[in-house]
């Protein structure tokens, strides 16, 4: 609405010109992706032809992707590992964060504010600062080099609690009071009344958490060593190190690593953008 009002004032000519200018800039901005895609479709000898052949003159797409997926690197396994870790982390994080957000906003118990302050304070401790002791702990208790370790680490991130807490506190306490008069306990209030009400917020957080986990390089890099457990990020890096000179293959692998998230992003575009603009959350 508001942008329309502003638009009416701007001359359509200048509006079209600015749009064209932005399209041009957008194209330049996307060139790395275009180059990646284009290189993944052609034979190695053509990759560095200059001027760049954006549309390959010789196609070798099927062979390249076959070599990536059926070669020595087990891309299917990396994919499966990433899907497993990302889905489980997202599930755990949504359950833990939603419960905590409910507890901190809708249940009255002594010490609630103090405990919330503790959670808030830990948020200021960067994960990068505790990598060393966590690594030591993980090695002592057998979580090092396991997917469980990764899932627990991502699943207990406090960010979700803050994000969802805002939505829970926006819901009137009257819902809860009237349900309590009808004899409902907190568990049924939480699952039957509150969760349906904040479903959009939960969807937003779940999509963001999935993307972050899928793209996370640092955590698996530090806490995994077994190649059979590699996520797509680690697998992709190992592949690039091994096949460094075969750029067409490396680019085919890159495209393969990006596509699933691109699909998630296009499907959940609205939620992602809303989530980012809402909390200004990242990482």
């Amino acid at each position: 609405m508001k942008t329309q009002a502003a638009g009416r004032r701007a001359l359509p000519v200048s509006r079209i010109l600015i749009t064209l200018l932005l399209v041009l800039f957008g194209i330049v901005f996307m060139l790395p992706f275009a180059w990646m895609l284009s290189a993944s479709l052609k034979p190695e000898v053509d990759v560095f032809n200059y001027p760049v052949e954006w549309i390959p003159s010789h196609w070798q797409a099927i062979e390249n992707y076959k070599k990536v997926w059926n070669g020595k690197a087990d891309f299917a396994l990396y994919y499966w590992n990433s899907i497993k870790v990302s889905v489980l982390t997202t599930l755990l994080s949504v359950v833990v964060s939603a419960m905590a957000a409910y507890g901190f906003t809708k249940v009255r118990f002594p010490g609630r504010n103090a405990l919330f302050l503790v959670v808030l304070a830990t948020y200021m401790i960067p994960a990068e600062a505790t990598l060393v002791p966590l690594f030591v702990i993980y090695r002592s208790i057998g979580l090092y080099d396991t997917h469980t370790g990764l899932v627990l680490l991502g699943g207990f991130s406090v960010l979700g609690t803050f994000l969802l807490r805002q939505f829970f506190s926006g819901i009137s306490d009257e819902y809860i009071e009237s349900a309590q008069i009808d004899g409902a306990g907190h568990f049924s209030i939480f699952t039957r009344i509150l969760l349906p009400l904040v479903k959009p917020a939960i969807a937003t957080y779940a999509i963001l958490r999935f993307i972050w986990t899928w793209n996370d390089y640092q955590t698996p890099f530090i806490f995994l060593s077994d190649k059979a457990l590699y996520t797509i990020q680690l697998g992709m890096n190992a592949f690039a190190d091994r096949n460094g000179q075969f750029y067409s293959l490396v680019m085919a692998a890159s495209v393969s690593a990006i596509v699933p998230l691109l699909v998630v992003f296009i499907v959940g575009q609205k939620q992602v953008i809303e989530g980012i603009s809402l909390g200004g959350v990242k990482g």
Partner: protein
Amino acid sequence: MTTPTDTGQAPKRRIPMPNSLPSSMSNSTPKPATARRARRLQEIAAGYIFVGPMLLGVIVFTLIPMIMLLIFSLTDWSFLTGYDKLRISGFGNFARLLQDAEFGESLLHNLIMLLAVPIGMAAALLLAVLISERAYMSSFFKVIFFMPQISSIVAVAVVWQVLFHPSYGPVNGFLSAVGVHEPPKWLADPHYALPSVMLLMIWIDLGVSLIIYIAGLKNIPRDLYEAADIDGASARVKFFRITFPLLTPTSFFLLITGLIANFKTFALIQVLTDGGPAHSTSVIVYDIYQQGFVNLKTGYASAMSIVLFIVILAITFLQWVGQRKWVHQG
């Protein structure tokens, strides 16, 4: 990152409630009192059950590691030698850090990299104004500029390595074609490596700042612009007198989160340059990784982690101070 509405004001908004307990026990007849007490106990149990898992996670994955970090930082320990060799030896690690030229360089690189934050923000703000108010297809542009953010950092780093390849990368191919005789070697040249990394960071993070700025622009009341139009204000005057000042809380938030994210940079450096060439792109977290996980110096790496923690804490404090100031606008 913390949200603008989160930190400063959130804890204050809650009104303490424990005073309901004594009054409920004193002024009612015995039977309802026990019923109430039972309900009260139930309420307390429910509270701890709901926040319990999160609290447990915070304790196990943040608080205990933090305490161990403090202890480790005062030792010469390496985790390979086992806990029985753990001896507190004082502040030697910190004294050594002060003289560690490499760590000093890494710190300096982090500080230089901070420049990427305001540059990226300025670009994002310009784009946000154009996209949300002066162009068509705004949601399309949001998606385009957000693309690097959802892409795998490894894939992105690999592509940039190739694009900026000194001899056969397309970037230098283009530069030679337009007559630049000795184009920079980018990531392979110690003088250009850090700026190249910064360029890549700006490219990756532009989309996030853009979306947050667009959201901020939507919150500016339209009538301010209408009033300015009546006064005959130019687009420039409107930007500097209305848009920019009213976006201060948004800009401040982006600045703080950007500074924090910059100090936490690791994955990009590890994948893209491994701190090189010639140590020219090393950063704090990269040094922590090198000392802690490659050289296995747990104690020394812990001391570096403490430095990182203090830096982030200082920035967070700055945020807290700033937010108190802008709490009513934000």
